């Protein structure tokens, strides 16, 4: 059972929730403007969180060094977010407010997030929209020239701002452009095609990173007064996910191994609307924005094994199961609920398509209602993507969709200031565990990434720097040398195995284990099996993997190998965490803990806490110790989530 | 760090565009003058005389030479930069829906051919045999006779027509392209701009070609 740890002091303010952030900001120390440029801050990752943090800190005058694994910071995976970004603007006059966004997010996260954090997120959401518009983000507008809003996954108000189906790209280009401005002003130095392979901790404080130059293979050291990790989630542990091919856990994992606690690793989000897998060769899955559920109706045939074409199945033989089970939310139930229901239908044998692992998402009624043109306006590019991939025209045939791993709510544990259990190491965006609890609401990831980068870290980082005496350290320090040495040895080790398995092969096997046992629904026995199987795979990996090429050149196989090696540890931690959390909440569904009608059954008595894992040993099989951060709900009283 | 307009690629393209538009106006008027051959030898010769006897002709010629040299030199500078920018060709050239027409890709080569044509053309006509004729107002140059001489040689006519077809392609793309380079583009008018450009090129090249064909096939002393 998890213990309480003094390291897990959330430093969350108390008192009236509306003024917590305001008061906290005032109490934080400031860094003299003239001194800021003397402080170096490392930002790893240049997605929404990283680019916005680098830009804002550069703007304040800090000397920022930003790193990304891509050829350009603009390629970070935030770019692929489709749907939108929430903000409590109440432009739609439908009763939205900061409090309602806060309430929805806490409830949506199934009471496993920190109230103070969530309230702050809702508070700064409005400033994000203002800032992004000022940066030239071309959000959708109405004919009068004002911003358009829509309702999005699980929300009963229209608070989602969007830019056709590519809100992520437009927001990222905004953050990227404002970071470019700082690069031009020389306050941000950009290091592209660099992969962080270690965190350098000196006297218990994060003081720099070790990176590999992915073009030359050179191992470089970079020292700083603080390190910001903005490296995204770990969904690719499942091999198939909607994450980009290069998304990985390595940076987070290296920090975890250096002492940063990992929070709620088992909380993964399975997104209900993805294009189903078509064969063994499948390399990744493509998301169809959940905004499609606003106009599409989800159904399966009433009869098992009905192989007729969807158009030939009469209305009376269709089961619009979300509308049937959840009359008030219908097709707009939160992601975890929609995903699980799709899985139940497939398990019942009522799945559709060649593999039987899909359900229909049908637009026929909407096309009848608003016309093909209306649907094209809203979802044109999504329909095109679907058409290209599946070779079926969704204007004529219902889409086939199935859930896929999409987002990880878990991540490195951080306090209210976004600092991990290693002083100086801050974690932003999807890489941290903080705001979404056990399930993230649609259009909240972009909001959190930008909130952390634009509006939280600029204050809290200043406080950290102003309150700590950080002696000058350069990269010749012994700790840097040791880190470089360790990193080199690990690379050599990967290259020296020269076994029979390809990296992808083992990754695929890991993915199958994770999906099977640590996927949409989990049970104790399966989770134990998963741990065993993952250990076996890890053994195979280190004794029988084949990594081609050399260290001192561009080598994508070597990059992949290092990442898969970390996934092979991460997967075990996820299964372990899922095993000890003996309740169902949000995206974490334990079969042993469900209501009679198959809904998630929380156990607030025992599990109203975040679990944070301390890495205690890195032998052949790593070991961990669990600690807990109890959660208090003063404002939103825990209740059984009901979308009926 | 701002390079000046004339040193930038866009500025240079605009120099090519502006000079090109000037040359477009010139070839149009030249072509119209040529068509006087269909009226009578006298009209043809008197028009030519009016042009060359005007003292402003030197200014105009100087201007024309300047336009032409600027067009040629700037295009060549750009062309060398372009060759340098693409250091290696593809194994398979772009094709299908993503391919472009040869006419559009070879503007500079067309220009070079037109240059050769121009030199020979000036040599043949402007600095060619100086026949004279008198219509009652003193002796003037009988350019008509020279034109008849030249265009009764089928070989010369073939070369002339080929050169003019190349000029057609050059103008057809060049005119629309110049407008685009100057920043004139609107989806509503774009089809009209393209059509006018083609129409203009057909008129000019066609008008020029009329003269040798007329001389070779229809003209009976």
């Amino acid at each position, binding site marked *: 059972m998890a213990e309480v740890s003094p390291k897990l002091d959330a430093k969350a303010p108390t008192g009236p929730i509306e003024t917590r952030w305001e008061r906290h900001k005032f109490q934080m120390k400031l860094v003299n403007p003239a001194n800021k440029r003397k402080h170096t801050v490392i930002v790893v990752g240049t997605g929404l969180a990283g680019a916005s943090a680098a830009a804002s800190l550069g703007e304040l005058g800090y000397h920022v060094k930003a790193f990304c694994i891509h050829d350009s910071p603009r390629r970070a995976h935030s770019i692929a977010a489709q749907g939108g970004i929430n903000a409590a603007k109440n432009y739609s006059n439908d009763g939205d407010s900061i409090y309602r966004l806060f309430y929805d997010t806490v409830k949506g996260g199934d009471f496993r997030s920190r109230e103070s954090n969530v309230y702050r997120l809702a508070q700064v959401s409005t*400033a994000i929209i203002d800032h*992004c518009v000022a940066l030239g983000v*071309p959000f959708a507008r109405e004919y009068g020239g004002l911003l358009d809003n829509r309702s999005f996954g699980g929300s009963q108000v229209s608070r989602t701002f969007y830019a056709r189906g590519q809100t992520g790209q437009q927001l990222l280009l905004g953050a990227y452009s404002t970071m470019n401005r700082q690069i031009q002003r020389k306050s941000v130095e950009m290091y592209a095609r660099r992969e962080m392979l270690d965190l350098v901790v000196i006297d218990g404080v994060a003081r720099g990173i070790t990176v590999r130059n992915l073009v030359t293979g050179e191992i470089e050291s970079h020292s700083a007064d603080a390190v910001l990790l903005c490296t995204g989630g770990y969904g690719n542990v499942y091999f198939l996910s909607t994450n980009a091919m290069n998304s990985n856990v390595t940076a987070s994992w290296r920090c975890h191994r250096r002492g940063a606690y990992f929070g709620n690793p088992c909380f993964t989000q399975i997104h209900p609307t993805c294009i189903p897998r078509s064969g063994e060769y499948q390399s990744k899955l493509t998301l169809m924005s959940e905004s499609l559920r606003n106009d599409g109706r989800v159904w399966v045939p009433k009869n098992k094994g009905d192989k007729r074409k969807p158009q030939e199945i009469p209305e009376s033989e269709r089961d619009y199961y979300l509308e049937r089970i959840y009359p008030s939310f219908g097709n707009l139930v939160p992601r975890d609920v929609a995903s699980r229901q799709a899985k139940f239908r497939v398990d019942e044998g009522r799945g559709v398509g060649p593999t039987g692992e899909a359900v229909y998402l049908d637009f026929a009624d909407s096309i009848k209602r608003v016309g093909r043109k209306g649907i094209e306006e809203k979802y044109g590019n999504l329909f095109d993507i679907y058409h290209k991939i599946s070779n079926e025209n969704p204007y004529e045939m219902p889409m086939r969709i199935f859930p896929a791993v999409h987002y990880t709510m878990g991540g490195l544990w951080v306090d209210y200031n976004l600092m991990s259990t290693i002083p100086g190491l801050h974690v932003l965006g999807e890489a941290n565990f903080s705001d979404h609890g056990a399930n993230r609401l649609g259009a909240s990831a972009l909001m959190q990434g930008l909130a952390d980068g634009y509006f939280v870290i600029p204050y809290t980082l200043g406080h950290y720097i102003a309150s700590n005496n950080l002696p000058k350290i350069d990269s010749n320090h012994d700790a840097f040398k040791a880190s470089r040495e360790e990193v080199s040895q690990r690379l050599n080790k990967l290259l020296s195995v020269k076994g029979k398995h390809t990296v992808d092969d083992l990754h695929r096997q890991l993915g199958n284990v994770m999906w099977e046992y640590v996927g949409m629904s989990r049970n104790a026995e399966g989770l134990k099996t998963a741990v065993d199987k993952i250990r076996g795979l890890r053994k195979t990996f280190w004794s029988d993997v084949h990594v081609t090429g050399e260290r001192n050149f561009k080598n994508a196989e070597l990059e992949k190998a290092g990442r898969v090696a970390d996934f092979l540890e991460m997967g075990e931690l996820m299964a372990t965490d899922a095993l000890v959390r003996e309740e169902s909440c949000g995206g974490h569904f334990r079969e042993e803990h469900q209501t009679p009608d198959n809904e998630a059954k929380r156990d607030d008595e025992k599990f109203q806490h975040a679990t944070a894992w301390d890495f205690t040993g890195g032998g052949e099989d790593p070991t961990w110790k669990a600690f807990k951060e109890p959660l208090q709900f003063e404002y939103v009283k825990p209740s059984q989530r009901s979308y009926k | 760090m701002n390079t*000046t307009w004339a040193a930038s690629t866009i500025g240079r*393209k605009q120099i090519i565009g502006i000079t090109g538009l000037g040359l477009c106006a010139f070839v149009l008027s030249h072509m119209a003058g040529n068509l006087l051959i269909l009226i009578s030898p006298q009209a043809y010769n008197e028009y030519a005389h009016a042009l060359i006897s005007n003292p402003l002709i030197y200014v105009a010629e100087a201007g024309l030479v300047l336009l032409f040299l600027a067009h040629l030199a700037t295009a060549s500078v750009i062309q060398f930069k372009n060759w340098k920018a693409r250091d290696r060709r593809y194994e398979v050239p*772009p094709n299908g829906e993503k391919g*472009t027409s040869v006419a559009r890709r070879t503007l500079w080569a067309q220009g070079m051919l037109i240059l050769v044509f121009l030199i020979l053309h000036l040599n043949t006509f402007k600095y060619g045999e100086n026949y004279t004729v008198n219509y009652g107002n003193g002796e003037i140059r009988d350019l008509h006779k020279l034109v008849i001489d030249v265009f009764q040689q089928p070989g010369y006519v073939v070369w002339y027509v080929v050169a003019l077809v190349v000029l057609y392609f050059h103008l057809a793309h060049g005119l629309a392209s110049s407008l685009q380079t100057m920043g*004139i583009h609107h989806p509503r008018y774009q089809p009209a701009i393209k059509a006018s450009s083609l129409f203009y090129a057909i008129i000019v090249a066609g008008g020029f070609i009329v003269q040798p064909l007329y001389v070779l096939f229809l003209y009976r002393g």
Partner: protein
Amino acid sequence: MNLKLKIWRQAGPQAKGHFMDFEAKNLSPDMSFLEMMDVVNEELVRTGQEPVEFDHDCREGICGSCSMVINGNPHGGDRGTTTCELYVRRFKDGDTVVVEPFRARAFPVIKDLVVDRSAFDRIQQAGGFITANTGAAPDANAIPVPKPDSDRSFSAAVCIGCGACVAACKNASASLFTAAKLSHLALLPQGQAEREERTLRMVAQMDAEGFGACTNTGACSAACPKEISQETIAQMNRDFLRASLSRR
């Protein structure tokens, strides 16, 4: 189905490249082109050879990483498509497929099909932004933007920075890329304050990177996976002329 692949291999920036022949067998028509490359690569690894390096990431047509020239066309023969959105069903059984890197002096080859496109970043660093400090913005609805303007701006902002325009252009010109970035901001009220300065700076950087000049062949728009219009280039030309003439 089977395909004969002819893939460019180049060990490093200075190395001399060559084509490698490869028979890709038993492919599913529903495979994406990159999944076929994965299969080829896994086969190479199994036989102890180095796999073909190529940039790729999101595999859904938005990150702009993938950058191959397939049978002469950047991102393959279909309009409005990135390489990752290209499917094997597009080819005929037994076809020969030539795969090359983007070729431009400003995009030097790093390895195999991977090229260095950092020139694009530098063009944007030169001025591709609106100066607005975090937290200083007025309410988002304070400035209405007419929908037609907003839509036009958006249709330029869809640029994914892949570089297909450069790859397709016979002059390796970056005009469409630079123009798309400029038009996106130039068509919004927020972008007006810096409009001229931005145009001058970005064009200067574009020239400094060694890209060629635009000769209006339209190859770029044809190759652009987001089908960005030539109109953006006209806008850039116009803005550049005005900015050059009016600068002090």
